[in-house]
């Protein structure tokens, strides 16, 4: 599913970072561990095609990311990758439901309303679907962000520090939720984090 080999990325000419080679198979989950500044986010962004211009190989679904043009990459990302960030970054001008609708619209996929309703109710935010995102709680907002990441049924979910700002109880709830939605969507979950609480939950770990 995911294959990283001899990957290096240069921020500037002198500041070059290299990553260990590894691969993740389908429906396998993986932690990218490392302290701040170790390049977790950079690796995640490289894997998600948000950052280009690397040397080495990043193959998702046997496709080398650098072989695609930017427009192709945008399209590929929309259909194959769901992102979850530490901050939810919901679109505040839209309702909960419309935040979910944006994802298939931007990816160029028709909206599957029944699937959307199911995701909303699975994540217990169905009754808030018509509310503006400014009107819901922090926890609900995070669930909307998770729903948005999986709404297109992507084979890969990339999460950047989804739990580090949460207390133990919420941390456990979120990771359980993430694993559950990944399971349901048959997706590979990659979490970049320095949160040691997750180490006992996901076995496969890459230390950066």
């Amino acid at each position, binding site marked *: 599913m995911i294959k990283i080999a001899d990957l290096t990325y240069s921020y500037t000419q002198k500041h070059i970072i290299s990553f260990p080679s590894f691969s993740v198979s389908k429906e396998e989950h993986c932690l990218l561990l490392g302290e701040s500044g170790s390049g977790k986010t950079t690796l995640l962004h490289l894997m998600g095609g948000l950052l280009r211009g690397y040397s080495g190989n990043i193959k998702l679904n046997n496709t080398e990311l650098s072989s695609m043009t930017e427009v192709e990459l945008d399209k590929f*990302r929309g259909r194959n990758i769901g*992102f979850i960030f*530490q901050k939810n*970054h919901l679109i*505040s001008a839209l309702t909960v439901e419309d935040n979910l609708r944006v994802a298939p*619209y*931007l990816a160029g996929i028709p909206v599957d309303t029944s699937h959307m309703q199911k995701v909303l109710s699975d994540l217990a935010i169905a009754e808030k679907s018509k509310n503006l995102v400014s009107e819901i709680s922090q926890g609900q907002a995070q669930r909307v962000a998770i729903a948005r990441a999986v709404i297109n049924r992507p084979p890969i979910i990339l999460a*950047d520090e989804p739990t580090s700002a949460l207390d133990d109880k919420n941390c456990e709830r979120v990771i359980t939720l993430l694993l559950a939605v990944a399971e349901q969507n048959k997706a590979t979950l990659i979490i970049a984090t320095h949160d040691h609480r997750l180490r006992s939950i996901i076995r496969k770990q890459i230390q950066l």
Partner: protein
Amino acid sequence: MNLFFLVWSYLKAKPLNTILNIVLLALGIAVVTVLLLFSKQFEEKISSNAKGIDLVVGAKGSPLQIILCNIFHIDFPTGNINLKEAEQITKSRLIKKAIPLALGDSYETFRIVGTTKELVELYKADFEQGGWWVGKMDVVLGANIAEALKFVVGSEFESTHGLTQGGHSHESKFVVKGIMKRSNTVLDNLIVTSVESVWHVHDEQGSDEKSASIQQRDSTVTPSKLIPTHPAGDSTKEITSLLIQYRSAMAAIQLPRIINGQSRLQAASPAFETARLFTILGVGVDILMVFAYVLIFISALSIFIALYNSLKERRYDLAIMRSMGASRAKLFISVLTEGTTLTLISCIVGLSIAHALVLIMPLLFIEMQKAGITGLIFYSEEWIILAASLFLGLLCSLVPAIQAYRTDISKVLAGN
């Protein structure tokens, strides 16, 4: 979910900002459009009223007043001219047609014009009801008068001296013989009758014999060239003016000089005088135009600043949208769409305000109603205004759109 829904949601999320921008630009566009509607319609009215009239000859005085009085019927006569003198001018080979006008009376602010059938023919008016005047004191009404006063064929009324209501009232009664169809010219606001009727009203106190018509006299008397029912060379009668049509372009050079050379007559060119009037009024119009452009400029600036600032706040939105598969071009287009949607709405609001204003104004000002100004007319220039506001929207949103296009998603999402 589509582009317009997304753009609309963003506009709706900041209602006050959006409304302010729309109101500002709409006002600017409304002022421009009102000026356009007025000046266009005035120009059209003036040219249709002055059509076929190359020169107006009246008593010595202001040439502008002669034009305003005898063509547009909104000013008072400069005085009277002797019928015999007028006839002498008419003999000139340079003149194709000369129509006499005898003014002085009105009814309910509508002017009574003593003239010949040629005046009505000049404006190509047809009859809605009835027909031509036959004898003295028979009149034909313009469409607006019949409507305003609810007159029909057979109605009678007494005229008053001057143009205002409540002036000295004459005793003889006018009888309506015909009502004309709307011609959208000044004729719609005129009560037209024979020159003799006007003389008759003013001769009431004196002996009536002098004004005896040609039929009652012996047939050897030559009829007047101007007023076929009246004998020629009558120096006791007066008219207000002559509307003259040239026979050739040569006349434009020679005739005014010949007429102005005579001590008691004044020639005035409608084309020249209306052009002069426009230059005088033009200053006011120009000031309003400048004001409108300043408004439009400020609103454009306001839209630009609003988009620029909101794009700063929306960096994360843009980056998230990219992460969900939106291309750079899509974000670029969405920002441009936001700008043009704003200006397009403003433009439609502005045009509507302008037409509504021009529609309402004649109800408040009787003069505008008389002039036939209407808000229900659309000019092709309004398409230009629409296109210009679309262009303005593109211009205002170009820099923010480029900003959106250049968003470094990774940097924004990394949160540094």
